[in-house]
């Protein structure tokens, strides 16, 4: 069967999912953009991966519009005036979202919803505001049917923030993904605790290290897609990744890897990024004619390329000849130290590369710990994470992660699975989050083991929706299929549960 026919006949795809699949197929027929032979060889080996971005980038991968500007000036192209009340505000956003491109075809950043909507919410009575927000969230879940759709709240407490948390709990939706920007001085314990409670019931929000992001991006940063740090009014051009385990296959020693093999692959990935970035800016029409650019909702100089890595754990284990993962990266100081050396080497080389455009960042790309895709199986763990199934205690896991998170301004994160008793003791989670963020963790996600909405590698899916696919039925959310793949191939839902051990007395 042809690929097109496969898509058309697949009973588990919705109409829109078929359309996206066919569009990708169409894009893959053009090969205008060419890379070096060495690049293709490395890709064929699996050492480099383009995350199926498609050979002809006709828009940046991630776009984070400045929604404040929409509320200030309106939008000519979409014929929207600045909103005067909550209904108009929500309606304007719903319309606007449908016109924000991305790699997924859905908007990956919905705005700092609490800040945007608070002035309008405060003018309404609470019950009415809640009703409007409920319909707003329902619209997002049913129209922007993709778990990489992401909204942010915080760092301050607000009526809108509280309403969004209440509704998130009541509605149990996988979309949108949600992040609290946590700042110990601006986020009250009470609000943070409300977020922890919501996280236990719905697997969101996650907690972003606000101070760390601000130090890299300034106040106007977005958490988009999984956990990606980007500029508001900007975004990410492209995100390819080094599959570090495969990069290490030919290395004779850790030194050989760091001095010879790794630089080779880094340079090939940089070549790929440079060409794509130039193509997006110079050839594709996006930065010339799209209303987002013309009207200033995004600025080309605020985009950067995201240099992704995956599989650091397996790479270190391979280089040190460690076969038993239980004794490897995460549990073994030698492997962790090697991981840091490798990250330093990547950081230095990528940081030394003068990238085209990316003006706001001194013409530099920024590192990203990619969360993995379903086809990675067990060979490459997400980013710098400790492999699923061999995680040490949560304390040891945090200690390792805190050392790796600072490398990744465009995103990294860790996920912790909690058992039932934590529903009664959310106060026991907050100090863990506060402590780890203070010590260098960038992004903390958690969920309760028995929830329907669960976090796979960075995105949320409903276990009940995965079940639908298993029964050959359609799932409205186009990400459910990745969740199924990650569960089957990477055992992504089998991560260690943080639970209490029996004490001596009942």
């Amino acid at each position, binding site marked *: 069967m042809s690929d097109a026919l496969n898509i058309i006949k697949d009973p588990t795809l919705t109409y829109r999912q078929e359309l996206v699949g066919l569009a990708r197929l169409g894009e893959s027929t053009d090969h205008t953009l060419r890379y070096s032979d060495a690049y293709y060889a490395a890709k064929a080996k699996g050492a480099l991966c383009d995350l199926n971005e498609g050979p002809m980038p006709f828009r940046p991968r991630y776009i984070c519009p400045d929604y404040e500007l929409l509320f200030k000036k309106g939008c000519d192209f979409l014929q929207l005036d600045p909103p005067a009340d909550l209904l108009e505000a929500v309606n304007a956003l719903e319309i606007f979202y449908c016109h924000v491109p991305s790699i997924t075809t859905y908007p990956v950043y919905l705005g700092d919803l609490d800040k945007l909507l608070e002035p309008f919410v405060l003018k309404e009575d609470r019950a009415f505001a809640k009703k409007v927000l409920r319909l707003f969230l329902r619209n997002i879940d049913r129209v922007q049917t993709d778990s990489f759709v992401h909204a942010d709240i915080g760092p301050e407490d607000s009526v809108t923030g509280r309403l969004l948390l209440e509704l998130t709990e009541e509605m149990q939706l996988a979309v949108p993904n949600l992040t609290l920007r946590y700042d110990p001085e601006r986020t009250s314990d009470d609000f943070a605790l409300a977020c922890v409670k919501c996280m236990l019931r719905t697997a969101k929000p996650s907690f972003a290290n606000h101070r760390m992001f601000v130090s890299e991006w300034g106040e106007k940063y977005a958490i988009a897609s999984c956990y990606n740090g980007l500029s508001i009014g900007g975004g990410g051009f492209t995100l390819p990744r080094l599959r570090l385990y495969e990069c290490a296959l030919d290395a004779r020693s850790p030194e050989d890897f760091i001095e010879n093999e790794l630089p080779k692959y880094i340079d090939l990935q940089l070549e790929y990024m440079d060409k794509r970035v130039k193509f997006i800016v110079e050839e594709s029409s996006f930065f010339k004619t799209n209303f987002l650019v013309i009207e200033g909702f995004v600025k080309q100089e605020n985009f950067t390329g995201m240099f992704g890595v995956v599989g650091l754990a397996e790479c270190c284990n391979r280089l040190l000849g460690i076969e038993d993962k239980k004794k490897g990266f995460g549990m073994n100081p030698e492997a962790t130290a090697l991981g840091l050396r490798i990250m330093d080497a990547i950081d230095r080389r990528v940081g030394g590369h003068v990238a085209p455009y990316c003006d706001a960042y001194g013409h530099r790309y920024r590192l990203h710990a990619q969360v993995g895709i379903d086809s990675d199986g067990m060979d490459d763990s997400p980013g710098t994470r400790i492999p699923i199934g061999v995680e040490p205690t949560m304390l040891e896991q*945090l200690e390792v992660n805190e050392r790796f998170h600072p490398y990744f301004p465009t995103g990294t994160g860790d996920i912790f699975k909690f058992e039932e008793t934590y529903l009664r003791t959310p106060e*026991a989670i907050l100090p863990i989050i506060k402590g780890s963020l203070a010590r260098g963790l960038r992004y903390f996600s958690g969920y309760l083991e028995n929830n329907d909405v669960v976090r796979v590698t960075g995105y949320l899916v409903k276990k009940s929706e995965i079940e639908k696919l298993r029964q050959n039925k359609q799932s409205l959310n186009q990400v459910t299929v990745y969740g199924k793949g990650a569960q089957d191939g990477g055992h992504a839902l089998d991560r260690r549960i943080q639970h209490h051990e*029996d004490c*001596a*007395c*009942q």
Partner: protein
Amino acid sequence: MKTAPVNKIIPFSNVDGPGNRTSIFFQGCPFNCLFCHNPETINLCVGCGDCVAGCPAGALSLGEGRALWDSKACVQCDACIRTCPHGASPKVRWMTVEEVLREVKRSAPYIDGVTTSGGECTLQNEFLIELFGEVKKLGKTCLIDSNGSFDFEKDPRVLAVCDGVMLDVKAVEPAWCRRLTGRGPEMPLKNLDYLLRAGKLQEARTVIFPGRDAENEETVRYTARRVGGACDYKIIRYRPYGVREAYRGMLGEYETEADYAEKYALMARELGASRAYVV
């Protein structure tokens, strides 16, 4: 150098007092509760050597009058615990205050405080006084999890450096209490009153056994009336896991039904223990 037998240290616990806590479990307990589900924590190793040969990892040897355990070699099969005829475990570390403190300091950035438990941690009274003094310097709270066998009134030094005690009220009726725990109820009940007076009762706890209507009711009534709204009163369901076989036969092979336990929590609340709930 003061040392104490430590069975294990759990860096993060959400069930040993408020917030996130590091729990330190000491070996050894003066009670011998029928329903103990970690009976290997009751006694200290007597050095009989019975467990040594059966260790598949060669992690055990005899010396210093007791079994010596190589934690790095151990594969955690628990064969030694099943073998030991003395209700002990060779997997115990004799640790100094500094050694315990080193582990506490590691988890300190993420915790609200420390809870000592067991076994019965008050057997290590002198050790606790020193340890708590140091933990306090880290700005963390210290809680004691106790069966009430230690006379807190007679030696109030440990209470002075601890923020509260989580006290078991296992039984009230003397004959039932002796059968259940091997000791009479006098000291735990005296402590219940004393800790309440001193404002140091962090929580009270009672295990509810299946089908023991009269015993359960007497314990809950007595405790609830005294505790009132002063602190949490946890009504705990009996669970047979880990309970020694001989005693499971007597106490029950099944865990206490949730509904049955809820009846007692309701009773406790009606008697004024407003913070009574089932766990």
